[in-house]
């Protein structure tokens, strides 16, 4: 299998606007599923096209297993890209679409036919050989596009937003299919998404991009437990932030001082971050302050409280039973689990 290395990869479309991809360094592990995550327009598709050889980088390098592939044309890279909008060739049948890559390699017709049939079985659309793309639903077209890529046995599979054009239930199905095929075939796979949940569920590692720059490259849980900046934590959502000053394993804020052994910074101005699940109500102890319940919602599997602590408001997600224990306006002790507190550097100046 193939390890893909991006070093200082940069793409500038237009001198007047900032780079679409800016000095990107990334080690994409062989045989793993890596997500390129980021908001729309952050350079995900551009990065994929450069890996596939469909766009020439302005500067930087791309190598497969240590060898630069910049001078190799797309058809010889062994990296196949599946586009977001499927792009099945409209005038070809499904069988011709899937067999396209083999036909280009001058594979014997009979062999193409049997391998197309195998692929249709793999993507669970047997018997679709003679249909035309326009007769298929979006989800089916997506699976055909996947089959068309897999039939050439790529070393690197690049999936551009494979799930974003699908309905919710189709999305789950497709997600299963991608995961299953990827594990079975062990292809180094990069998939693009703007949905953090999708990245977390599917990927072995996530590369988070903002404005063409790599923010964090990590395993999924790290983005919740130890995001490297406030922006990253905000992108993953739900976290409480309290500004303060960090020193000697303690962070001092306007509502009190908290023990916080885990941090991304050594000291100085910092932000205490804590996820709502790590905020408990009722029991006083270390790392506790008094707060007042402002509002609550009962969601069924859990309850969500908004609590004011001095000039700050935090969210707590608790056991649903706690709804009966507290009323809006009650004064309650609020405890931050010190092992769940994560101290981040202050938000960037432009925030």
């Amino acid at each position, binding site marked *: 299998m193939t390890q893909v290395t991006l070093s200082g990869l940069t793409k500038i479309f237009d001198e007047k606007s900032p780079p679409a991809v800016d000095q990107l360094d990334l080690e994409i592990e062989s045989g793993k599923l890596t997500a390129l995550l980021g908001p729309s327009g952050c350079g995900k598709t551009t990065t994929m096209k450069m890996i596939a050889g469909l766009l020439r980088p302005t500067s930087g390098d791309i190598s497969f297993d240590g060898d630069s592939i910049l001078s190799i*044309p797309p058809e010889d890279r062994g990296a196949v*890209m599946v*586009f977001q909008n499927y792009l099945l060739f409209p005038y070809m049948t499904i069988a011709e679409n899937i067999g*396209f890559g083999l036909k280009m390699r001058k594979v014997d017709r009979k062999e193409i036919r049997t391998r197309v049939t195998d692929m249709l079985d793999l993507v669970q659309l047997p018997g679709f050989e003679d249909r035309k793309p326009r007769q298929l639903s979006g989800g089916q077209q997506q699976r055909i596009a996947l089959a068309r*890529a897999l039939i050439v046995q790529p070393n690197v599979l690049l999936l551009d937003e494979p799930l974003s054009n699908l309905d919710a239930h189709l999305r789950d199905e497709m997600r299963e299919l991608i995961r299953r095929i990827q594990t079975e075939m062990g292809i180094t796979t990069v998939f693009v998404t703007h949905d953090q949940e999708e990245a977390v569920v599917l990927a072995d590692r996530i590369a988070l991009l903002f404005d063409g720059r790599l923010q964090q490259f990590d395993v999924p849980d790290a983005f919740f437990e130890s995001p490297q900046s406030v922006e990253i934590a905000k992108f993953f959502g739900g976290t409480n932030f309290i500004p303060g000053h960090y020193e000697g394993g303690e962070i001092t804020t306007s509502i009190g001082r908290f023990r916080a052994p885990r941090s991304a910074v050594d000291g100085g101005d910092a932000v205490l971050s804590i996820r709502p699940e790590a905020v408990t109500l009722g029991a006083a102890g270390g790392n506790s302050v008094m707060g007042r319940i402002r509002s609550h919602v009962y969601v069924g599997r859990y309850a969500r409280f908004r609590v004011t602590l001095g000039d700050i408001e935090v969210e707590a997600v608790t056991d649903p039973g706690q709804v009966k224990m507290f009323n809006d306006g009650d004064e309650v002790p609020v405890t931050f689990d010190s092992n769940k507190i994560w101290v981040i550097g202050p938000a960037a100046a432009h925030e």
Partner: protein
Amino acid sequence: MAVRTRRLTGTGLSEKAARRLTITVLLAPAILVILLLFMGGLVTGFLRSLGYFPLIGLNDFNFDAYSIIFTDNGFIRSFILTFHIAFTSTLIASILAVASAMLLRPAFRGKRFVQFIFSLNLTIPHLVGAVGVLYLFSGSGLVSRLATGAGLIDSPAGFPAMVNDPWAIGIIIQYVWKEIPFIGVIVLAILLSVGEDYESVARSLGANRWQAFRNVTLPLIMPGVVSASVIVFAFTFGAFEIPWLLGSTFPKALPVLAFESYTDVDLAARPQAMAMAMVIAVMSSLMILAYMKVSRRYVRS
């Protein structure tokens, strides 16, 4: 699925139908005039080709004119020549138009410039182009003189006949020059609207540049190329002035032959002229029909 509501007007007609009716009524006078002139001309021409011309005492219907022209070696050769002119110039113009559109597409920053060049060419009348071809490619023309000057040929007389020649090279040059931008503009527009993503997919799946063009781009632009070139074919098949100026004396292109028979002092030749005109009209109509059929098939698939 969007639910489309259809509002009904007081007359019980849908808005769309009502609008269509209004347009038809407004256009009716113009359509009538065109129908009278065009269809009238066609019907009269057809009747006369059948030998019906009461003014000069011909009152019977017969196919004499057709059997005369179809057994006349001169007519057959004219027909072949005309087909050769239309087919060859359309084919060459289409290939060059596709090639230039492909070359122009990536650098489409210079859009304005290209449009200028193309529109410049489109606005020059065929006749002016023909004079240009005469000036450049005739035996005493510029190219011939330059070739003589450069020592490529001994004298202008040694220059190969490209104007008024039996192979109709001069005519074809003029048509190709004139039609490349016409087809090219259409192809370029299609190329830009289709985008480059399909080719990217093909390249990514293992097609080299040529394979991607041959298997993906060409089928995608083919309907446009076919419709543009059929129009060009029908036009070049029926056009008179260029073969009249640049054509050989024998065989003559069909439209020239038809015109000359028509203006012949012998009124008896008129039915034959009309029969020829009918052949031209039928050929052109067949082309248009073929065009509609082919393009519809492409649109459907």
